[in-house]
C-alpha cells in the first residue's frame, strides 16, 4: 500500500479535529472493506488515513426518542442480530444480513456500507473516467461491458450505488447525522445520496471534514410490513444486480401506505415515488402489483448488456407488493 500518516483518534471531537486539519487529504477508514481495495490497488493515495475503530461513541444502537439511533461504525452483524432492530425494523436487519459474507459483515459498518464508492470496474481500475475526474464514461460506449450499470438517471456516468442497507434505510425514512467541526446537520436518506448530475465524483454528500456519526430511524414504519430481496450472481459475497426494500402499512388486503426503494439501478437508491402514490388505498392483489411493476420501470434507459434489469426490477416490485402473502385475487 502507499504510505500514509495514520491517525487513530479516540473521540468524535478528536476525529473532527483531524479531519478539519487535513481536509481533502484525509481519508476516513471504518470497516476498511472499500478502503483497502482502493489503497492496495494504489488507485487512491491519501496522505492521511483516519481510523475510526477506537471511537467508541460511534458504535452502538440506542433507543432515542421516537426511534432508534445507530452509530455509524456499528457493524452489520450487530445490526442484523440486535433485538431492537429485529423487532422494530426487521427490514434493516434483513438487508444487513444480505451484505457479503459473515466475516465481512463482522467488520463492515453501517456508515461504511452506505458511504461506499461505486463498484464500476472501469472506475475501480483507475481509468480516468468522469467519476475519477476525467471526461469519459468507459462503461457507456458501444463496446462496454456494462451488465451491472444504471438504467435510471445516468448523467454521463452510469455507475450504480452498491449498498444493500441504503435502500432499506431510505424505505424506513432514516435520517443521517453529519458533523463537521462544531456543526451538526441531519439530512434525509434522499438528500444524503447524490447522483452524477449533481456531483459526478461522489455517491453521497459527504465533503472533506464531514463525519457521518449516526443514522436515526423514526418509528414511523416500526412494526409495519416489509420486504427485502437482493438478486446477485451468486448467493454469498456479491454485490446486488438489483435489490429492493419496501415498507408497507397494510390493513387487511388494502395498502394504506408504502415506501419502496430499488438499488443497483441508479447512482442513488431509486425511490419509486409514482408507485408509492399509486399503491395508496389499492388492494394488495396481482392486478395492483402488475400495474405497479410497469409503472416502476417507466423511463428506464438500458445499455448494451443491462436490459435484463428491467424485467428483473418489475419482478422484484411485484414480489415486494405480494410479500409472503398469497394473492387474494
Amino acid at each position: 500500500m502507499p504510505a500514509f500518516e495514520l491517525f487513530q483518534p479516540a473521540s468524535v471531537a478528536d476525529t473532527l479535529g483531524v479531519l478539519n486539519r487535513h481536509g481533502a487529504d484525509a481519508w476516513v477508514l471504518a470497516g476498511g472493506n472499500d478502503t483497502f481495495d482502493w489503497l492496495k490497488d494504489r488507485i487512491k493515495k491519501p496522505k492521511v488515513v483516519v481510523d475510526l475503530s477506537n471511537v467508541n461513541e460511534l458504535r452502538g444502537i440506542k433507543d432515542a426518542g421516537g426511534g432508534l439511533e445507530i452509530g455509524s461504525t456499528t457493524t452489520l452483524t450487530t445490526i442484523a442480530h440486535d433485538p431492537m432492530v429485529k423487532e422494530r425494523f426487521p427490514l434493516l436487519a434483513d438487508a444487513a444480513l444480505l451484505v457479503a459474507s459473515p466475516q465481512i459483515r463482522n467488520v463492515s459498518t453501517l456508515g461504511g456500507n452506505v458511504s461506499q464508492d461505486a463498484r464500476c470496474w472501469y472506475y475501480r481500475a483507475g481509468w480516468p473516467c468522469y467519476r475519477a475526474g476525467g471526461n469519459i464514461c468507459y462503461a457507456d460506449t458501444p463496446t462496454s461491458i456494462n451488465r451491472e450499470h444504471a438504467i435510471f438517471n445516468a448523467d454521463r456516468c452510469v455507475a450504480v450505488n452498491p449498498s444493500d442497507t441504503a435502500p432499506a434505510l431510505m424505505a424506513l425514512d432514516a435520517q443521517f447525522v453529519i458533523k463537521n467541526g462544531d456543526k451538526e446537520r441531519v439530512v434525509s436518506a434522499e438528500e444524503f445520496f447524490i447522483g452524477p448530475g449533481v456531483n459526478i465524483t461522489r455517491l453521497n454528500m459527504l465533503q472533506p471534514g464531514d463525519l457521518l456519526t449516526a443514522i436515526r430511524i423514526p418509528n414511523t414504519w416500526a412494526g409495519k410490513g416489509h420486504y427485502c430481496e437482493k438478486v446477485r450472481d451468486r448467493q454469498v459475497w456479491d454485490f446486488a444486480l438489483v435489490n429492493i426494500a419496501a415498507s408497507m402499512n397494510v390493513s387487511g388486503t388494502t395498502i394504506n401506505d408504502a415506501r419502496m426503494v430499488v438499488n443497483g439501478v441508479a447512482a442513488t437508491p431509486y425511490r419509486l415515488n409514482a408507485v408509492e402514490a399509486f399503491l395508496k388505498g389499492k388492494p394488495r392483489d396481482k392486478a395492483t402489483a402488475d400495474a405497479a411493476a410497469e409503472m416502476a420501470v417507466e423511463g428506464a434507459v438500458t445499455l448494451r448488456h443491462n436490459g435484463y434489469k428491467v424485467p428483473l426490477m418489475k419482478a422484484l416490485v411485484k414480489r415486494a407488493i405480494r410479500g409472503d402473502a398469497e394473492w387474494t385475487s
Partner: protein
Amino acid sequence: MDLLTTARSPWGESVFIHISWSLFWASLVGGLLFLLAHGGYMLFSQHHKQTSGEVDRMERERAGLPAHITRHGFVARAFHWVMAFSMLALLFTAFLPIIGVRFAWVQWHWMAGVLLTASVLFHIFHATFVLDFWSIWVGPKDIPEFKAEMMRDLGQEVPGAPLPGKYPLGNRLYHLAVMVAGLVVIGSGIMMMYRVRTGLVERNPYVMADPAWGLTYVAHGLMGVGFVGLVIAHIYFALRPEKLWITKAMIFGTISRRDYLTHHDPNRWSAQGSRKSNVA
C-alpha cells in the same frame, strides 16, 4: 500548479483531460481587476471626443438628420439579447458547480449551448445578407483610428483624427474576441454532446481519439473561462455612464442625432439624412 490536467488513458497515452479550474478564478479576478483599473483610470483621465463646437457645426451641416437614428433593428437586438441570455446561462451552469453550488447542470448547459449555436447561426446569416457585413471587422486600416483613440484616452486633443463608422473600435475588437472564443466553444461543445445523452446526437465517445477529445475539452475550458473575463468587461462597459447611449440603443434601437455626430463618422456610417447640406 498545472494549468492543464492530464491523465493516462487505458492505452497508456498521456492525454489532456481538461483545464485547471484555477484558470476560472484567474479569469474572474482578472476581469474584476481590469474593471477596477479602468474605472480608476477613467476617474482621472480627460477622455476627449469631438468638441461641442465641432458637433454644433456638424449638426448645422447635416440639417436633414432625424432626431433619432436607428442603430440596431429589432432583429439585431433580439439576437443580441437571446445570445446574452444563453451566454449567461452557459456561464452560470458551467461555473456555479465549480464554486460549490451543486445542481444537475449538464442538461441546462447543453440546452443553452444549442440556443447559443442557433442564435449565432442566425446572426451569421443576418449579418451576411442583411447588415453591413464589414462594418464590424477590424484590420490594418483601423490603425489611425486606434492611435487617435489612444491619444484621446491619454487626454490629448486629436483634431481631424478619424472617428469610427457604425461600431467604435472597442466594439469591433470585442466582437473579434467573442467571435473567436464563441466559435471555439460552439465547435468543441457540439463535439462534447457526443459524450452526453441529449437525444439530438447519438452518444458515441469514440467519435474521436482520446488526444483529440483532450484538446476539445481543453479548448472548451479555455474559451469558457475566457468568456468569464469577456462578459465582465462587456457588462462593465455597458454600464459605464459615457457608454450608456450605446446600451440604450441595444434596448430601444436608436441613438440621438448628437450622439451620432459626436461618436461616429457620418461618412463611414451613413444614416438617413446624414449627407451634408450647403448650410454653413
